[in-house]
């Protein structure tokens, strides 16, 4: 069996008396899209925070590309190749789209402690960044300040930044949120190709997208994974149907 890229086991996080993450175990294998679904308040955000490193778990382990990353900072995990997009797009608003991606490229290239060479004369940065923008179809918008990009374009920009990092896994937090039907469709097509780059842990409410893309689905309810399986297995799972999909079925 192939070694998973991301492997989470027995993860626990308490907020006072509330157990927000209750022994979560899941993994992400090469080439797959693994969707994480669950009702609001199921603890998806808390889980993502722990995977990225903004929150520290109380118990359990997180392994990424063969290393225990549970004690590493956000930046260190990112350096190992954990590419992430946010539920609400997170970009540097005053920078152009290009400079946003260039930031990721320079981080990938290693050193931000270079003080004298102007980045706008640094073709190794600009060319790589432009290539990433082209891949997400933002090439024409490269010089626009990120704050002026549309909602969907910011999503694309975030993905371009994750690509530029040479990510070994993508962690996408509700990429479809706030997208119109057209946008969702084209993003779905794009994500389908993205899986060849690196596996994707997809947190998503849009069931059409999930069912269209996911190789496997895990269902999170009250901080627990109540089921993991293929799309068909999840569709048929009685516990999932009552706990979560009831209103859909």
């Amino acid at each position, binding site marked *: 069996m192939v070694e998973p890229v991301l492997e989470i086991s027995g993860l626990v996080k308490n907020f006072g008396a509330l157990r927000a993450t209750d022994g979560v175990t899941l993994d992400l294998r090469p080439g797959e899209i693994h969707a994480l679904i669950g009702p609001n308040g199921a603890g998806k955000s808390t889980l993502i925070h722990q995977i*990225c490193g*903004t929150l520290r778990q109380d118990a359990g382990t997180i392994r990424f590309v063969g290393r225990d990353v549970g004690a590493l*900072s*956000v*930046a*260190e*995990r*990112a*350096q190992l190749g954990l590419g*992430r997009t*946010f539920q609400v797009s*997170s*970009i*540097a*608003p*005053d*920078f*152009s789209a290009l*400079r*946003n991606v*260039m*930031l*990721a490229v*320079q*981080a*990938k290239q290693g*050193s*931000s*402690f*270079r*003080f*004298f*060479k*102007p*980045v*706008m004369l*640094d073709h190794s*940065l600009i060319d790589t960044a432009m290539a990433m923008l082209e891949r997400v179809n933002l090439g024409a918008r490269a010089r626009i*300040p990120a704050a002026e990009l549309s909602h969907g374009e910011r999503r694309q920009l975030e993905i371009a*930044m994750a690509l*530029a*990092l040479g990510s070994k896994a993508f962690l996408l937090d509700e990429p479809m949120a706030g997208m119109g039907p057209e946008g969702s469709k084209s993003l779905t097509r794009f994500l389908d190709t993205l899986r060849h780059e690196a596996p994707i842990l997809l947190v998503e409410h849009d069931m059409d997208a999930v069912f269209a893309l996911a190789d496997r689905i895990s269902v999170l309810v009250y901080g627990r994974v109540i089921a993991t399986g293929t799309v068909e297995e999840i569709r048929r799972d009685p516990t999932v149907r009552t706990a979560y999909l009831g209103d859909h079925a």
Partner: protein
Amino acid sequence: MPMLNRENLVNLALAILLIAVPLIANGLGQPFYITLATRVAILALAATGLNLALGLGGLVSFGHAAFFGLGGYVAGILAAHNFSGEPVIFGLGGTNQMWVIWVVSILVSGIVGLAIGAISLRTSGVYFIMITLAFAQMVYYFAISWPAYGGQDGLSILVRNQFPGISTMRPLSFFFVCYVILILGIGLFALIRASRFGAALQASRQNEVRVATVGIRPFRIRLTAFVISAMLTGIAGALFADLNRFVSPSMLSWQMSGELIVLIILGGTGRLFGPLAGAALYVVFEYALGGMTERWQFFLGLILLLVVLFARGGLIGLLAGKAKHG
């Protein structure tokens, strides 16, 4: 490539104006205006240092007077020891050579900046403002109470320190020394702003989480920026002490920290020539209003308030329009 857009034109005009005023004043036999222009250049350098942390990095340091004053005390203490012939520390004597003083003040403010930054940057927002203020107060009270170097009375530099080949006691020569360092300082600011480091620094002001998410540690970036910022402000302090031939704890006071911030805001936050524009404006206000009325601080307050409330881009913003980010 620097293009001749409006901001660059304004900047160029400012740079020329700053050098033209003392030259004309010299021709007219009005050396005081040279002194005034030197003051502008030095304050602009100090504020350029702060602008690196505050304008680019969004680090509102309310304690940069600590570095300004430390630079000043380096100049004062080294000159005093040079005069008395007693060693400063470990058998090393004082000096009256400006370039040695500059190197030492850069080192001293850099080291102190590293210590203050390492603790202060663990906090953010108001806490950062307040903890930097507290550190500056600590240095201030230390300087006031420590008996060795004049305490509250300060320390006089009897003869302005020397620079090889230049008669520093001549106002115009000393102005040129300060002007060159200011331009170098502004150049350094421009280089850093355009560099990879500058990109990471500005990005961490705009969105700290984003920076961490691409794998850059904001803390290290900020700490480095804070230290460079402290160094620039420190060397300005050394020049300021030489201008006045005097250094006292009031260079370390919290009002001084406030004034440095004021200079940046008056000129335009994060703008390359903002500190210079702000310093020029401030010194002119102080001089012109001070000549007109004893209540000049009242009117200075009013003007400041109006600028903050209604003219957020500062002078550069007014003249050159909104800042552009590539």
